[in-house]
């Protein structure tokens, strides 16, 4: 039983990481209607930026304070992601207003390839470290309930807390603020939003910057845990099944979807894996998403899609 | 002009009710259509006219009621079956295949009659080639009829609206339908284009005996060419009869002009 719970916690924590990536995704879709295939690439780009700048800043400025380095590196990375958002809006999105979903999807696919190459060109392609002072030692809890206690990772708990805070902030933003509501209008219909005077360009820059910043947070947490390497952008592909499960327009859905997939992956790997050779984690998320698509395409909390003739 | 022979009831709509979520699009609609006639459906915007046609075509499934075609009743229609039965349709918003040329668009209407399987089509020999040519010839007759010869190879997305409407009609005609449902075929046209379109509709009705069910806003056209008229308002039927009867119907007048006139 103890092992089961540990596995479950491990799954929850992994799921939390997926949710973090998915959040940026939902943000962009909810507010601009674009299925951002480049979200994983943005996470990698942001993480690389954070990792390298936290290396370079002490070298350039000649001091050694970890907290200050991290703050500066974070600030620089935020600025970088905002610039990326501006570039994406200016060079790509502006010209593709009103194109259908597939075209936009393929455009973001192109953007993701571009960012993959650019990120590695600018920052290098080795594996890099991010150290934001997260505690690395595991902790043991509930020793009285289970023999030996349960092994949990403190780092994961911090990550979960960060994700929870982010989710709350984003939910409040969309529900309560004027900008949030304007963003939801934009996502619905680009042309209509323009015709009532919403400045599409500015909105998109804001939205994609926010998506970029969320990607940065996700990248920092992932990178701190796993090290920053190219495979992050591939693992981030898993964010898509997460949002399918949760609903493309739902912030809480992204969290729930991530948790379900994280736990589902781990549990099926441990318990069903040995029966069929292992490696289930590679496709479990996608097959689950497929099942959802056939039964409930809008996911757990998404808006129902109506086809008008 | 010789009076045409109007036959028995070919299409019978009984007690159709359709709603989306809380919105009632159609409430207890019943009317019939006789063979070879031109039946107009009129009513203010939002009355449910297109929804009615969509029910007949199987695009929407009504919650209540039935549709009878040549004696066979259905509680809801299946689009493919409807096409096989010989009911053709044009669309208010021009559901043309924008990526294809005029010829190809109209050829899709011949699809039901093409029998060669995939392999024969891939090899394009013998029967497959002959079929393709035969149907092409039929489509060319339709193109002649609709006077769009000059545009046959143009992608329809590039044609002006009036011509696109003709292609829409051509595609429906290619199915050799027994009943033709026309959803505002003259919307957005000027006087000359409307006259052309009326001519086509009447020719189809008189030469081929095709029954026509026509949604139209232009009262002049309706009064001129239809044999009988159904009037809808807010999803309910408020009038049914010959153009003259309907023109003098109190409910119809107040629906169009508003009460208190």
């Amino acid at each position, binding site marked *: 039983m103890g092992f089961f719970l540990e596995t479950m916690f491990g799954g929850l924590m992994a799921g939390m990481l997926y949710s973090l990536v998915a959040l940026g995704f939902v943000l962009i879709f909810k507010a601009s209607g674009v299925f951002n295939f480049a979200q994983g690439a943005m996470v990698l780009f942001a993480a690389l930026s954070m990792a390298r700048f936290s290396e370079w800043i002490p070298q350039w400025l000649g001091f050694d304070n970890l907290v200050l380095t991290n703050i500066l590196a974070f600030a620089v990375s935020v600025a970088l992601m905002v610039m990326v958002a501006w570039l994406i809006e200016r060079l790509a999105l502006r010209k593709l207003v009103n194109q259908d979903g597939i075209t936009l999807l*393929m455009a973001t696919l192109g953007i993701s*390839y571009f960012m*993959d190459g*650019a990120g590695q060109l600018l920052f290098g392609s080795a594996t890099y470290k991010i150290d934001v002072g997260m505690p690395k030692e595991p902790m043991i809890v509930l020793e009285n309930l289970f023999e030996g206690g349960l092994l949990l990772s403190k780092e994961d708990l911090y990550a979960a807390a960060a994700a929870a805070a982010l989710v709350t902030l984003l939910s409040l933003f969309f529900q309560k603020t004027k900008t949030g509501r304007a963003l939801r209008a934009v996502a619905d219909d680009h042309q209509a939003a323009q015709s009532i005077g919403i400045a599409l360009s500015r909105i998109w820059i804001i939205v994609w910057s926010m998506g970029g910043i969320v990607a940065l947070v996700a990248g920092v947490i992932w990178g701190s845990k796993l090290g920053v390497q190219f495979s992050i952008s591939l693992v981030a592909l898993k964010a898509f099944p997460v949002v399918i499960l949760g609903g493309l327009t739902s912030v809480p859905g992204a969290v729930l979807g991530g948790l379900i997939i994280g736990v589902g992956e781990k549990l099926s790997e441990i318990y069903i894996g040995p029966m069929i050779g292992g490696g289930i984690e590679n*496709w479990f998320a996608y097959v689950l*998403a*497929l099942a959802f698509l056939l039964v409930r395409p809008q996911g757990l909390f998404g808006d129902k899609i109506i086809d008008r003739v | 002009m010789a009076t045409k022979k109007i036959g028995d009831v070919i299409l019978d709509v009984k007690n159709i009710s359709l709603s989306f979520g809380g919105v009632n699009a159609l409430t207890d609609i019943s009317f019939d259509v006789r063979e070879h006639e031109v039946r107009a459906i009129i009513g203010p915007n939002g009355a449910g006219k297109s929804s009615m046609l969509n029910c007949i075509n199987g695009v929407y499934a009504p919650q209540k009621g039935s549709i009878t075609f040549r004696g066979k009743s259905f509680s809801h229609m299946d689009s493919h079956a409807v096409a096989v039965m010989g009911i053709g349709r044009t669309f208010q918003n021009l*559901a043309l*295949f924008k990526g294809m040329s005029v010829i190809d668009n109209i050829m899709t209407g011949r699809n039901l009659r093409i029998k060669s399987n995939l392999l024969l089509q891939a090899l394009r020999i013998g029967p497959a080639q002959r079929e393709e040519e035969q149907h092409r010839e039929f489509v060319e007759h339709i193109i002649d009829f609709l006077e769009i010869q000059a545009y046959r190879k143009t992608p329809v997305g590039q044609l002006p609206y009036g011509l696109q409407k003709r292609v829409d009609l051509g595609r429906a005609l290619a199915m050799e339908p027994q009943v033709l449902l026309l959803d505002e075929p003259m919307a957005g046209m000027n006087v000359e284009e409307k006259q052309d379109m009326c001519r086509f509709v009447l020719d189809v009705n008189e030469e081929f005996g095709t029954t026509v069910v026509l949604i139209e806003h232009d009262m002049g056209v309706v009064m001129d060419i239809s044999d009988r008229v159904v009037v809808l308002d807010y999803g309910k039927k408020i009038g049914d009869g010959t153009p003259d009867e309907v023109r003098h119907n109190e409910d119809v007048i107040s629906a169009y002009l508003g009460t208190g006139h």
Partner: protein
Amino acid sequence: MFYRENGQFKSTYRADLQIFPILQDRIAIGMLLLVAMVAVPLLASDYMFRAVFIPFLILSLAAIGLNILVGYCGQISLGTGAFMAVGAYAAFNLQTRFDGMPLIVSLIGGGLCATVAGVIFGLPSLRIRGLYLAVATLAAQFFIDWFTNRVKWVTNDSSSGSVSVGDLNFFGLALNTSVEKYLLCLMIVLVVGILAKNLVRGAIGREWMAIRDMDVAAAVIGIRPVYAKLSAFAVSSFIVGVAGALWAFVHLGAWEPAAFGIDKSFQLLFMVIIGGLGSIVGSFFGAAFIVLLPLFLNQVPHWLGLPLSTATASQLEHMIFGALIVFFLIVEPHGLARLWLTARQKLRLWPFPH
């Protein structure tokens, strides 16, 4: 003044329905075929065959397959690599488990297995479309990745996970040299290309395009969406499967599942987008582009005297691909094929400006 249709009147529908109705086009294609079948085998070097012509032909074939699904029928698929894998491994099993199995039978068998996989994984397209379908096809990609990796009999119980085929022969004629392999690929591509062109300009092609453009209207006309979509998946997967088998047998010789991973799927999708969605000719353009660009990127820095490391070259390649995708989608969503068509229109008027 050369490219005019003056005087070329067609008096039968059969004549108008030809693939190349214009005489100048027929001459051009004839010359191209002559070059491909005679000049290239005589003049090209071994390197050119292995690095350029053979991959170009095989990838064109795969691109034709994918174009049928994405370009003509409008069903997006990110799982093409997986279907190539199915074709490759099925052909491999047929070839190695049965002594004396003719190559063509193995290839067709590979294609048919890919067809089955394609139809199964294409079933979701009956209920979902667009972006959602894209994610669903990822399920096909990763599941089949895993399947070819883990299920032992697929690789004939190979311990390392990688497999190879021995010497190939075509009904007794040994296929050892690059020229012979090239000619085999050329022959297959020509045959499949013609069959594919016949399909897309015939009734089923119109059905596919109708579904792509407006599937509700298509249903009302009597086109069955189920048949149209599944037939698109079936035909597309067959062609992609054969291409996969050829890629494995002829181009790679020895391979492992990673050869058909998601990168391959993206590569093919790029080919089809850049080349031109909904165009058989475009598939060739896209494949040529994707094959030539890396070679170009490798050579140009040398010419300019700035050598790039392979890592940098590959990163630049990624950036250029990505940028070109976005560029094409903005400027010419119909890809190189449309640019080519526009060029030909201009050629018809030449030397007049309009």
